[in-house]
Protein backbone atom coordinates (compact mmCIF):
# COMPACT_ATOMS: atom_id res chain seq x y z
CA UNK A 1 0.00 0.00 0.00
CA UNK A 2 2.83 2.32 0.90
CA UNK A 3 4.31 1.60 -2.51
CA UNK A 4 1.10 2.56 -4.31
CA UNK A 5 0.81 5.83 -2.37
CA UNK A 6 4.39 6.78 -3.13
CA UNK A 7 3.96 5.94 -6.81
CA UNK A 8 0.76 7.97 -7.00
CA UNK A 9 2.37 10.98 -5.33
CA UNK A 10 5.30 10.94 -7.70
CA UNK A 11 2.85 10.45 -10.58
CA UNK A 12 0.99 13.60 -9.58
CA UNK A 13 4.23 15.55 -9.13
CA UNK A 14 5.41 14.52 -12.61
CA UNK A 15 2.07 15.53 -14.10
CA UNK A 16 2.29 18.99 -12.51
CA UNK A 17 5.86 19.52 -13.67
CA UNK A 18 5.04 18.39 -17.22
CA UNK A 19 2.02 20.64 -17.43
CA UNK A 20 4.13 23.59 -16.23
CA UNK A 21 6.93 22.81 -18.68
CA UNK A 22 4.57 22.51 -21.62
CA UNK A 23 2.59 25.59 -20.69
CA UNK A 24 5.56 27.84 -20.06
CA UNK A 25 7.49 26.68 -23.11
CA UNK A 26 4.52 27.72 -25.23
CA UNK A 27 3.80 30.93 -23.42
CA UNK A 28 7.07 32.45 -22.30
CA UNK A 29 9.06 32.07 -25.49
CA UNK A 30 8.76 34.82 -28.10
CA UNK A 31 6.06 34.85 -30.75
CA UNK A 32 2.74 36.60 -30.34
CA UNK A 33 -0.10 34.27 -31.35
CA UNK A 34 -2.46 37.16 -32.06
CA UNK A 35 0.09 38.65 -34.42
CA UNK A 36 0.65 35.37 -36.19
CA UNK A 37 -3.08 34.90 -36.67
CA UNK A 38 -3.73 38.39 -37.96
CA UNK A 39 -0.45 38.91 -39.79
CA UNK A 40 2.48 41.11 -38.88
CA UNK A 41 1.02 44.40 -40.08
CA UNK A 42 -2.31 44.05 -38.27
CA UNK A 43 -4.02 46.99 -36.61
CA UNK A 44 -2.85 47.21 -32.94
CA UNK A 45 -6.39 47.70 -31.65
CA UNK A 46 -7.49 44.54 -33.43
CA UNK A 47 -4.53 42.65 -31.99
CA UNK A 48 -5.55 43.85 -28.53
CA UNK A 49 -9.15 42.76 -29.11
CA UNK A 50 -8.09 39.31 -30.30
CA UNK A 51 -5.70 38.95 -27.36
CA UNK A 52 -8.55 39.75 -24.98
CA UNK A 53 -10.88 37.25 -26.64
CA UNK A 54 -8.19 34.55 -26.48
CA UNK A 55 -7.50 35.42 -22.84
CA UNK A 56 -3.92 36.42 -23.67
CA UNK A 57 -4.14 39.71 -21.76
CA UNK A 58 -4.30 37.85 -18.43
CA UNK A 59 -1.11 37.40 -16.37
CA UNK A 60 0.75 34.12 -17.03
CA UNK A 61 0.10 32.36 -13.68
CA UNK A 62 -3.64 33.01 -14.04
CA UNK A 63 -3.60 31.56 -17.52
CA UNK A 64 -1.72 28.50 -16.29
CA UNK A 65 -4.24 27.90 -13.51
CA UNK A 66 -7.08 28.38 -15.99
CA UNK A 67 -5.53 25.88 -18.36
CA UNK A 68 -4.91 23.25 -15.69
CA UNK A 69 -8.36 23.53 -14.12
CA UNK A 70 -9.69 23.41 -17.68
CA UNK A 71 -8.02 20.06 -18.21
CA UNK A 72 -9.94 18.56 -15.30
CA UNK A 73 -13.27 19.97 -16.46
CA UNK A 74 -12.69 18.98 -20.09
CA UNK A 75 -12.21 22.56 -21.24
CA UNK A 76 -8.90 22.74 -23.09
CA UNK A 77 -9.50 26.18 -24.49
CA UNK A 78 -10.30 27.24 -28.01
CA UNK A 79 -8.27 26.41 -31.08
CA UNK A 80 -6.88 29.53 -32.77
CA UNK A 81 -7.20 27.93 -36.16
CA UNK A 82 -10.63 26.31 -36.06
CA UNK A 83 -12.20 28.72 -33.60
CA UNK A 84 -13.80 25.71 -31.92
CA UNK A 85 -13.19 23.99 -28.56
CA UNK A 86 -9.95 21.99 -28.63
CA UNK A 87 -11.71 19.07 -26.92
CA UNK A 88 -14.26 18.66 -29.75
CA UNK A 89 -11.58 18.70 -32.44
CA UNK A 90 -9.46 16.15 -30.60
CA UNK A 91 -12.38 13.87 -29.75
CA UNK A 92 -13.33 13.75 -33.41
CA UNK A 93 -9.88 12.58 -34.46
CA UNK A 94 -8.66 10.52 -31.53
CA UNK A 95 -10.45 7.20 -32.35
CA UNK A 96 -8.52 6.67 -35.58
CA UNK A 97 -5.15 7.38 -33.95
CA UNK A 98 -6.00 5.10 -31.03
CA UNK A 99 -7.05 2.37 -33.44
CA UNK A 100 -3.78 2.58 -35.38
CA UNK A 101 -1.69 2.84 -32.20
CA UNK A 102 -3.29 -0.16 -30.49
CA UNK A 103 -3.31 -2.18 -33.73
CA UNK A 104 0.42 -1.48 -34.08
CA UNK A 105 1.12 -2.41 -30.43
CA UNK A 106 -0.74 -5.69 -30.87
CA UNK A 107 1.22 -6.44 -34.07
CA UNK A 108 4.47 -5.62 -32.24
CA UNK A 109 3.73 -8.10 -29.48
CA UNK A 110 2.25 -10.95 -31.52
CA UNK A 111 5.09 -10.79 -34.04
CA UNK A 112 7.94 -9.67 -31.78
CA UNK A 113 7.57 -12.11 -28.88
CA UNK A 114 7.35 -15.38 -30.90
CA UNK A 115 10.15 -14.22 -33.22
CA UNK A 116 12.30 -13.29 -30.23
CA UNK A 117 11.77 -16.74 -28.72
CA UNK A 118 12.51 -18.58 -31.98
CA UNK A 119 15.61 -16.47 -32.61
CA UNK A 120 16.92 -17.03 -29.09
CA UNK A 121 16.48 -20.80 -29.38
CA UNK A 122 19.09 -20.97 -32.10
CA UNK A 123 22.43 -19.50 -31.14
CA UNK A 124 25.80 -19.39 -32.81
CA UNK A 125 28.45 -16.92 -33.79
CA UNK A 126 27.38 -16.08 -37.35
CA UNK A 127 23.74 -16.50 -36.55
CA UNK A 128 23.85 -13.95 -33.74
CA UNK A 129 25.91 -11.56 -35.85
CA UNK A 130 23.33 -11.64 -38.64
CA UNK A 131 20.47 -11.28 -36.16
CA UNK A 132 22.20 -8.39 -34.44
CA UNK A 133 22.66 -6.51 -37.70
CA UNK A 134 19.15 -7.31 -38.98
CA UNK A 135 17.50 -6.03 -35.79
CA UNK A 136 19.75 -2.96 -35.79
CA UNK A 137 18.61 -2.40 -39.37
CA UNK A 138 15.01 -2.51 -38.16
CA UNK A 139 15.79 0.08 -35.50
CA UNK A 140 17.67 2.32 -37.94
CA UNK A 141 14.97 2.50 -40.60
CA UNK A 142 12.62 5.50 -40.45
CA UNK A 143 9.00 4.36 -40.17
CA UNK A 144 7.83 6.78 -42.85
CA UNK A 145 10.24 5.26 -45.34
CA UNK A 146 9.02 1.77 -44.46
CA UNK A 147 5.53 3.14 -45.03
CA UNK A 148 6.41 4.21 -48.57
CA UNK A 149 8.21 0.92 -49.22
CA UNK A 150 5.12 -1.02 -48.10
CA UNK A 151 2.85 1.17 -50.24
CA UNK A 152 5.11 0.59 -53.21
CA UNK A 153 5.35 -3.17 -52.81
CA UNK A 154 1.91 -4.13 -51.52
CA UNK A 155 -0.34 -1.41 -52.91
CA UNK A 156 1.30 -0.21 -56.12
CA UNK A 157 2.99 -3.38 -57.37
CA UNK A 158 0.84 -6.16 -55.92
CA UNK A 159 -2.40 -4.26 -55.30
CA UNK A 160 -3.15 -6.24 -52.12
CA UNK A 161 -3.98 -3.19 -50.02
CA UNK A 162 -5.52 0.18 -50.79
CA UNK A 163 -2.92 2.93 -51.37
CA UNK A 164 -4.60 5.70 -49.42
CA UNK A 165 -7.81 6.08 -47.48
CA UNK A 166 -9.35 3.49 -45.17
CA UNK A 167 -12.53 1.63 -44.33
CA UNK A 168 -14.09 2.84 -41.08
CA UNK A 169 -14.53 0.15 -38.43
CA UNK A 170 -18.22 1.01 -38.05
CA UNK A 171 -18.63 -0.23 -41.62
CA UNK A 172 -16.56 -3.37 -41.34
CA UNK A 173 -14.05 -4.43 -38.72
CA UNK A 174 -12.20 -6.67 -41.16
CA UNK A 175 -12.10 -3.90 -43.73
CA UNK A 176 -10.60 -1.54 -41.15
CA UNK A 177 -8.00 -4.10 -40.07
CA UNK A 178 -7.08 -4.70 -43.70
CA UNK A 179 -6.96 -1.07 -44.81
CA UNK A 180 -5.01 0.07 -41.74
CA UNK A 181 -2.61 -2.87 -41.78
CA UNK A 182 0.17 -1.17 -43.76
CA UNK A 183 0.40 1.96 -41.57
CA UNK A 184 0.22 -0.05 -38.35
CA UNK A 185 2.79 -2.55 -39.57
CA UNK A 186 5.12 0.26 -40.70
CA UNK A 187 5.09 1.66 -37.15
CA UNK A 188 5.47 -1.81 -35.63
CA UNK A 189 8.65 -2.84 -37.50
CA UNK A 190 11.06 -0.77 -35.39
CA UNK A 191 9.37 -1.91 -32.19
CA UNK A 192 9.42 -5.54 -33.29
CA UNK A 193 13.18 -5.23 -33.69
CA UNK A 194 13.43 -3.72 -30.20
CA UNK A 195 11.34 -6.52 -28.66
CA UNK A 196 13.36 -9.22 -30.43
CA UNK A 197 16.68 -7.78 -29.23
CA UNK A 198 15.46 -7.36 -25.71
CA UNK A 199 13.78 -10.74 -25.44
CA UNK A 200 16.68 -12.58 -27.05
CA UNK A 201 19.20 -11.08 -24.60
CA UNK A 202 16.92 -11.77 -21.70
CA UNK A 203 16.42 -15.42 -22.73
CA UNK A 204 20.13 -16.01 -23.39
CA UNK A 205 20.96 -14.56 -19.94
CA UNK A 206 18.42 -16.88 -18.37
CA UNK A 207 19.95 -19.95 -20.05
CA UNK A 208 23.25 -19.17 -18.35
CA UNK A 209 21.79 -19.49 -14.84
CA UNK A 210 22.60 -22.35 -12.53
CA UNK A 211 19.09 -23.77 -12.19
CA UNK A 212 19.07 -24.56 -15.91
CA UNK A 213 21.99 -26.95 -15.36
CA UNK A 214 20.10 -28.55 -12.50
CA UNK A 215 17.00 -28.92 -14.64
CA UNK A 216 19.09 -30.53 -17.39
CA UNK A 217 20.59 -32.93 -14.87
CA UNK A 218 17.12 -33.80 -13.64
CA UNK A 219 16.52 -34.96 -17.19
CA UNK A 220 14.28 -32.21 -18.54
CA UNK A 221 14.68 -31.54 -22.25
CA UNK A 222 15.78 -28.12 -23.49
CA UNK A 223 12.32 -27.66 -24.88
CA UNK A 224 10.68 -28.34 -21.53
CA UNK A 225 13.10 -26.04 -19.75
CA UNK A 226 12.44 -23.29 -22.24
CA UNK A 227 8.69 -23.36 -21.92
CA UNK A 228 8.45 -24.18 -18.22
CA UNK A 229 11.17 -21.98 -16.76
CA UNK A 230 13.07 -19.73 -19.12
CA UNK A 231 10.15 -18.06 -20.84
CA UNK A 232 8.36 -17.29 -17.62
CA UNK A 233 11.36 -15.50 -16.26
CA UNK A 234 12.49 -13.79 -19.41
CA UNK A 235 9.22 -12.49 -20.81
CA UNK A 236 8.78 -10.49 -17.62
CA UNK A 237 11.52 -7.97 -18.30
CA UNK A 238 9.87 -7.25 -21.65
CA UNK A 239 7.10 -5.65 -19.61
CA UNK A 240 9.51 -2.93 -18.56
CA UNK A 241 10.00 -1.73 -22.14
CA UNK A 242 6.26 -1.46 -22.82
CA UNK A 243 6.43 2.22 -21.80
CA UNK A 244 9.21 2.82 -24.29
CA UNK A 245 7.35 0.97 -27.03
CA UNK A 246 4.16 2.90 -26.34
CA UNK A 247 6.04 6.18 -26.70
CA UNK A 248 7.60 5.05 -29.98
CA UNK A 249 4.23 3.86 -31.25
CA UNK A 250 2.64 7.22 -30.55
CA UNK A 251 5.40 9.13 -32.30
CA UNK A 252 5.23 6.59 -35.15
CA UNK A 253 1.48 7.13 -35.45
CA UNK A 254 1.96 10.89 -35.71
CA UNK A 255 4.43 10.43 -38.58
CA UNK A 256 2.75 7.55 -40.40
CA UNK A 257 -0.64 9.27 -40.54
CA UNK A 258 1.10 11.86 -42.68
CA UNK A 259 2.42 9.16 -45.01
CA UNK A 260 -0.97 7.52 -45.54
CA UNK A 261 -2.94 10.80 -45.32
CA UNK A 262 -5.11 9.49 -42.47
CA UNK A 263 -7.25 12.06 -40.63
CA UNK A 264 -6.01 11.36 -37.09
CA UNK A 265 -4.21 13.39 -34.43
CA UNK A 266 -0.86 13.19 -36.26
CA UNK A 267 -2.04 14.97 -39.38
CA UNK A 268 -3.90 17.41 -37.13
CA UNK A 269 -0.75 18.17 -35.14
CA UNK A 270 1.49 18.67 -38.15
CA UNK A 271 -1.00 20.87 -39.98
CA UNK A 272 -1.59 22.95 -36.82
CA UNK A 273 2.05 23.92 -36.51
CA UNK A 274 1.98 26.24 -39.48
CA UNK A 275 -0.96 28.06 -37.82
CA UNK A 276 0.85 28.18 -34.48
CA UNK A 277 -2.29 26.84 -32.89
CA UNK A 278 -0.81 26.75 -29.37
CA UNK A 279 -3.89 25.62 -27.38
CA UNK A 280 -4.36 22.64 -29.68
CA UNK A 281 -0.67 21.71 -29.82
CA UNK A 282 -0.03 22.00 -26.11
CA UNK A 283 -3.08 19.86 -25.39
CA UNK A 284 -1.93 17.20 -27.85
CA UNK A 285 1.55 17.08 -26.29
CA UNK A 286 0.00 16.94 -22.83
CA UNK A 287 -2.24 14.01 -23.84
CA UNK A 288 0.74 12.04 -25.18
CA UNK A 289 2.78 12.75 -22.03
CA UNK A 290 -0.12 11.71 -19.79
CA UNK A 291 -0.58 8.44 -21.70
CA UNK A 292 3.13 7.68 -21.35
CA UNK A 293 3.33 8.31 -17.61
CA UNK A 294 0.09 6.41 -17.00
CA UNK A 295 1.47 3.44 -18.97
CA UNK A 296 4.74 3.62 -17.03
CA UNK A 297 2.86 3.72 -13.73
CA UNK A 298 0.72 0.73 -14.73
CA UNK A 299 3.81 -1.20 -15.83
CA UNK A 300 5.50 -0.49 -12.48
CA UNK A 301 2.50 -1.65 -10.50
CA UNK A 302 1.81 -4.63 -12.76
CA UNK A 303 5.42 -5.72 -12.62
CA UNK A 304 5.24 -5.84 -8.86
CA UNK A 305 1.98 -7.71 -8.89
CA UNK A 306 3.20 -10.33 -11.37
CA UNK A 307 6.60 -10.73 -9.75
CA UNK A 308 6.37 -10.19 -5.98
CA UNK A 309 10.13 -10.60 -5.62
CA UNK A 310 10.62 -7.14 -7.08
CA UNK A 311 10.98 -4.49 -4.41
CA UNK A 312 10.81 -1.04 -5.87
Amino acid at each position, binding site marked *: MKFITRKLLSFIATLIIISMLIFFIFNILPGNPALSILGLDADPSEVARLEASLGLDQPLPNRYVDWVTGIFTGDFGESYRYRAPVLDIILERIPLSMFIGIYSLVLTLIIGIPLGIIIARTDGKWYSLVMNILT*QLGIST*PSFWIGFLLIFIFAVMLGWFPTYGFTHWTESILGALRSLFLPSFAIAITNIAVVIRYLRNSILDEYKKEYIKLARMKGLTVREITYRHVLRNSIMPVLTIIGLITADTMVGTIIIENVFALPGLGTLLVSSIEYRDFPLIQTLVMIVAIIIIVVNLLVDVLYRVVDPRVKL
Partner: protein
Amino acid sequence: MYTNKNITLNIGVTLVSILFFMMIVSLFWTPYPPNELHTSDRLVSPNGQYWFGTDNFGRDILSRIMEASQTAFLIGISTLAIAFTGGLIIGGTSGYFGGVVDEILMRIIDALLAIPGLLLAIMLITIFHTGLWNTVLAIGVMGIPTFARVIRSGFLQIKNNDYVTASRLKGASHLWLIRQHILPNVMTPIIVVSTLYFSSAILAESALSFLGLGVQEPDASWGRMINEARPYLATAPWYILISGGFIIMLVLGFNLIGDGLRHHNESKR
Protein backbone atom coordinates in the same frame (compact mmCIF):
# COMPACT_ATOMS: atom_id res chain seq x y z
CA MET B 1 40.46 -12.13 -30.47
CA TYR B 2 38.17 -11.39 -33.36
CA THR B 3 34.64 -11.46 -32.00
CA ASN B 4 31.19 -10.64 -33.27
CA LYS B 5 31.22 -7.31 -31.52
CA ASN B 6 34.39 -6.32 -33.33
CA ILE B 7 32.76 -7.23 -36.61
CA THR B 8 29.71 -5.15 -35.68
CA LEU B 9 31.95 -2.24 -34.77
CA ASN B 10 33.91 -2.59 -38.01
CA ILE B 11 30.82 -2.66 -40.19
CA GLY B 12 29.57 0.45 -38.39
CA VAL B 13 32.86 2.28 -38.81
CA THR B 14 32.99 1.29 -42.49
CA LEU B 15 29.49 2.57 -43.20
CA VAL B 16 30.10 5.88 -41.44
CA SER B 17 33.52 6.31 -43.08
CA ILE B 18 32.10 5.79 -46.58
CA LEU B 19 29.45 8.43 -45.97
CA PHE B 20 31.93 10.75 -44.30
CA PHE B 21 34.22 10.44 -47.30
CA MET B 22 31.29 11.17 -49.60
CA MET B 23 30.48 14.24 -47.53
CA ILE B 24 34.07 15.52 -47.78
CA VAL B 25 34.12 14.93 -51.54
CA SER B 26 30.81 16.77 -51.93
CA LEU B 27 32.39 19.89 -50.41
CA PHE B 28 34.61 20.12 -53.49
CA TRP B 29 32.93 18.14 -56.21
CA THR B 30 29.56 16.70 -57.17
CA PRO B 31 28.77 15.10 -60.56
CA TYR B 32 26.48 18.03 -61.38
CA PRO B 33 25.71 21.24 -59.47
CA PRO B 34 23.08 20.00 -56.95
CA ASN B 35 20.53 22.62 -57.96
CA GLU B 36 21.13 22.53 -61.72
CA LEU B 37 17.93 21.84 -63.64
CA HIS B 38 18.10 19.48 -66.61
CA THR B 39 14.61 20.26 -67.85
CA SER B 40 14.72 17.73 -70.66
CA ASP B 41 15.72 14.95 -68.26
CA ARG B 42 12.97 14.86 -65.63
CA LEU B 43 12.46 11.73 -63.52
CA VAL B 44 15.01 9.78 -65.53
CA SER B 45 15.69 6.34 -64.05
CA PRO B 46 19.24 5.53 -62.87
CA ASN B 47 21.64 5.21 -65.83
CA GLY B 48 25.26 5.82 -66.81
CA GLN B 49 24.78 9.56 -67.02
CA TYR B 50 22.76 10.03 -63.84
CA TRP B 51 23.74 7.18 -61.50
CA PHE B 52 20.75 7.63 -59.21
CA GLY B 53 18.44 9.18 -61.82
CA THR B 54 16.94 12.66 -61.73
CA ASP B 55 14.09 14.23 -59.78
CA ASN B 56 10.96 16.00 -60.97
CA PHE B 57 12.91 19.15 -61.83
CA GLY B 58 15.58 17.16 -63.65
CA ARG B 59 18.15 17.65 -60.86
CA ASP B 60 20.77 14.94 -60.48
CA ILE B 61 19.77 12.85 -57.44
CA LEU B 62 23.33 11.65 -56.69
CA SER B 63 24.56 15.24 -56.47
CA ARG B 64 21.70 16.15 -54.14
CA ILE B 65 22.28 13.05 -52.01
CA MET B 66 25.92 14.09 -51.65
CA GLU B 67 25.00 17.66 -50.80
CA ALA B 68 22.48 16.42 -48.24
CA SER B 69 25.14 14.32 -46.51
CA GLN B 70 26.65 17.64 -45.37
CA THR B 71 23.36 18.50 -43.68
CA ALA B 72 23.25 15.09 -41.99
CA PHE B 73 26.75 15.40 -40.50
CA LEU B 74 26.19 19.04 -39.62
CA ILE B 75 22.96 18.15 -37.79
CA GLY B 76 24.61 15.24 -36.00
CA ILE B 77 27.64 17.19 -34.82
CA SER B 78 25.96 20.44 -33.84
CA THR B 79 23.02 18.83 -32.05
CA LEU B 80 25.53 16.65 -30.22
CA ALA B 81 27.36 19.80 -29.09
CA ILE B 82 24.14 21.32 -27.75
CA ALA B 83 22.90 18.15 -26.07
CA PHE B 84 26.29 17.44 -24.51
CA THR B 85 26.82 20.99 -23.22
CA GLY B 86 23.28 21.21 -21.84
CA GLY B 87 23.54 17.75 -20.33
CA LEU B 88 26.92 18.52 -18.80
CA ILE B 89 25.66 21.71 -17.15
CA ILE B 90 22.46 20.15 -15.79
CA GLY B 91 23.72 16.63 -15.09
CA GLY B 92 27.05 17.88 -13.75
CA THR B 93 25.47 20.36 -11.34
CA SER B 94 22.97 17.77 -10.25
CA GLY B 95 25.44 14.94 -9.71
CA TYR B 96 28.24 17.03 -8.25
CA PHE B 97 26.29 19.03 -5.71
CA GLY B 98 23.47 16.55 -5.01
CA GLY B 99 20.85 17.36 -2.38
CA VAL B 100 17.92 19.61 -3.16
CA VAL B 101 19.41 20.90 -6.42
CA ASP B 102 19.71 17.31 -7.63
CA GLU B 103 16.18 16.48 -6.54
CA ILE B 104 14.65 19.45 -8.38
CA LEU B 105 16.70 19.13 -11.56
CA MET B 106 16.10 15.39 -11.85
CA ARG B 107 12.35 15.83 -11.37
CA ILE B 108 12.34 18.22 -14.31
CA ILE B 109 14.52 15.92 -16.41
CA ASP B 110 12.25 12.96 -15.65
CA ALA B 111 9.23 14.98 -16.65
CA LEU B 112 10.94 15.98 -19.90
CA LEU B 113 11.78 12.34 -20.59
CA ALA B 114 8.07 11.54 -20.48
CA ILE B 115 7.61 13.62 -23.63
CA PRO B 116 8.91 11.57 -26.58
CA GLY B 117 11.97 13.25 -28.12
CA LEU B 118 10.49 13.89 -31.53
CA LEU B 119 7.35 15.40 -30.01
CA LEU B 120 9.49 17.72 -27.89
CA ALA B 121 11.35 18.73 -31.05
CA ILE B 122 8.06 19.35 -32.89
CA MET B 123 6.91 21.46 -29.94
CA LEU B 124 10.07 23.58 -30.08
CA ILE B 125 9.81 23.92 -33.87
CA THR B 126 6.31 25.35 -33.37
CA ILE B 127 7.86 28.11 -31.35
CA PHE B 128 11.12 28.67 -33.23
CA HIS B 129 9.74 28.07 -36.76
CA THR B 130 11.34 25.76 -39.31
CA GLY B 131 14.78 26.02 -40.89
CA LEU B 132 18.19 24.38 -40.55
CA TRP B 133 19.42 26.08 -37.36
CA ASN B 134 16.08 25.93 -35.60
CA THR B 135 16.01 22.22 -36.36
CA VAL B 136 19.49 21.91 -34.86
CA LEU B 137 18.34 23.74 -31.74
CA ALA B 138 15.17 21.67 -31.35
CA ILE B 139 16.94 18.33 -31.80
CA GLY B 140 19.80 19.46 -29.55
CA VAL B 141 17.41 20.32 -26.73
CA MET B 142 15.67 16.98 -27.29
CA GLY B 143 18.91 15.21 -26.33
CA ILE B 144 19.68 17.20 -23.16
CA PRO B 145 17.63 15.04 -20.74
CA THR B 146 19.37 11.82 -21.83
CA PHE B 147 22.85 13.32 -21.53
CA ALA B 148 21.99 14.94 -18.20
CA ARG B 149 20.95 11.54 -16.83
CA VAL B 150 24.09 9.74 -17.98
CA ILE B 151 26.45 12.50 -16.86
CA ARG B 152 24.74 12.78 -13.50
CA SER B 153 25.08 9.09 -12.69
CA GLY B 154 28.71 9.18 -13.79
CA PHE B 155 29.40 12.13 -11.50
CA LEU B 156 27.63 10.42 -8.61
CA GLN B 157 29.81 7.34 -8.99
CA ILE B 158 33.12 9.17 -9.24
CA LYS B 159 32.75 12.06 -6.83
CA ASN B 160 32.86 9.94 -3.68
CA ASN B 161 36.13 8.23 -4.58
CA ASP B 162 38.95 8.82 -2.12
CA TYR B 163 41.23 10.50 -4.62
CA VAL B 164 38.55 13.09 -5.36
CA THR B 165 38.09 13.78 -1.66
CA ALA B 166 41.85 13.98 -1.20
CA SER B 167 42.16 16.45 -4.03
CA ARG B 168 39.32 18.48 -2.56
CA LEU B 169 41.07 18.56 0.84
CA LYS B 170 44.19 19.86 -0.85
CA GLY B 171 42.10 22.85 -1.83
CA ALA B 172 41.21 22.06 -5.45
CA SER B 173 38.34 24.10 -6.86
CA HIS B 174 35.10 22.48 -8.03
CA LEU B 175 35.75 23.24 -11.69
CA TRP B 176 39.30 21.91 -11.56
CA LEU B 177 38.11 18.70 -9.90
CA ILE B 178 35.40 18.20 -12.46
CA ARG B 179 37.75 18.78 -15.38
CA GLN B 180 40.72 16.90 -14.00
CA HIS B 181 39.22 13.92 -12.20
CA ILE B 182 35.57 13.42 -12.92
CA LEU B 183 35.11 14.15 -16.64
CA PRO B 184 37.83 11.79 -17.90
CA ASN B 185 36.24 8.99 -15.90
CA VAL B 186 32.74 9.51 -17.25
CA MET B 187 33.83 9.82 -20.88
CA THR B 188 33.31 6.13 -21.73
CA PRO B 189 29.53 6.02 -21.19
CA ILE B 190 29.26 9.48 -22.75
CA ILE B 191 30.90 8.28 -25.95
CA VAL B 192 28.45 5.38 -26.25
CA VAL B 193 25.48 7.66 -25.62
CA SER B 194 26.89 10.15 -28.14
CA THR B 195 27.07 7.66 -31.01
CA LEU B 196 23.55 6.45 -30.29
CA TYR B 197 22.34 10.04 -30.00
CA PHE B 198 23.99 10.89 -33.32
CA SER B 199 21.80 8.32 -35.02
CA SER B 200 18.62 9.43 -33.28
CA ALA B 201 19.40 13.05 -34.18
CA ILE B 202 19.66 12.11 -37.85
CA LEU B 203 16.45 10.07 -37.64
CA ALA B 204 14.71 13.01 -35.95
CA GLU B 205 15.97 15.46 -38.56
CA SER B 206 14.82 13.26 -41.40
CA ALA B 207 11.40 12.83 -39.79
CA LEU B 208 11.03 16.58 -39.19
CA SER B 209 12.19 17.43 -42.70
CA PHE B 210 9.89 14.77 -44.12
CA LEU B 211 6.97 16.37 -42.29
CA GLY B 212 8.00 19.73 -43.74
CA LEU B 213 8.97 21.02 -40.28
CA GLY B 214 12.73 20.75 -40.54
CA VAL B 215 15.28 21.79 -43.13
CA GLN B 216 13.79 23.94 -45.90
CA GLU B 217 14.77 24.68 -49.51
CA PRO B 218 17.40 25.44 -50.73
CA ASP B 219 19.19 23.35 -48.04
CA ALA B 220 19.27 19.71 -49.11
CA SER B 221 18.28 16.97 -46.68
CA TRP B 222 17.55 13.29 -47.16
CA GLY B 223 14.29 13.55 -45.23
CA ARG B 224 13.23 16.52 -47.31
CA MET B 225 14.07 14.60 -50.50
CA ILE B 226 11.69 11.83 -49.41
CA ASN B 227 9.02 14.45 -48.91
CA GLU B 228 9.64 15.82 -52.42
CA ALA B 229 9.72 12.32 -53.88
CA ARG B 230 6.42 11.12 -52.47
CA PRO B 231 4.16 12.15 -55.40
CA TYR B 232 6.41 10.11 -57.70
CA LEU B 233 6.41 6.90 -55.65
CA ALA B 234 4.68 4.94 -58.44
CA THR B 235 6.48 6.56 -61.38
CA ALA B 236 9.98 7.09 -59.94
CA PRO B 237 10.32 4.71 -56.96
CA TRP B 238 14.12 4.90 -57.00
CA TYR B 239 13.98 8.53 -55.84
CA ILE B 240 12.35 7.67 -52.50
CA LEU B 241 14.16 4.34 -52.08
CA ILE B 242 17.62 5.81 -52.60
CA SER B 243 17.07 8.87 -50.38
CA GLY B 244 15.87 6.65 -47.54
CA GLY B 245 18.69 4.17 -48.16
CA PHE B 246 21.25 6.81 -47.22
CA ILE B 247 19.44 7.74 -44.01
CA ILE B 248 19.43 4.05 -43.08
CA MET B 249 23.12 3.59 -43.91
CA LEU B 250 24.25 6.47 -41.70
CA VAL B 251 21.89 5.70 -38.81
CA LEU B 252 22.74 1.99 -38.95
CA GLY B 253 26.44 2.85 -39.03
CA PHE B 254 26.25 4.88 -35.83
CA ASN B 255 23.95 2.36 -34.12
CA LEU B 256 26.38 -0.46 -34.88
CA ILE B 257 29.29 1.60 -33.57
CA GLY B 258 27.36 2.40 -30.39
CA ASP B 259 26.37 -1.24 -29.92
CA GLY B 260 29.90 -2.47 -30.59
CA LEU B 261 31.43 0.06 -28.20
CA ARG B 262 28.99 -0.77 -25.45
CA HIS B 263 29.80 -4.47 -25.58
CA HIS B 264 33.48 -3.68 -25.90
CA ASN B 265 33.33 -1.66 -22.67
CA GLU B 266 31.31 -4.31 -20.88
CA SER B 267 33.72 -7.09 -21.75
CA LYS B 268 36.68 -4.97 -20.68
CA ARG B 269 35.31 -4.60 -17.17
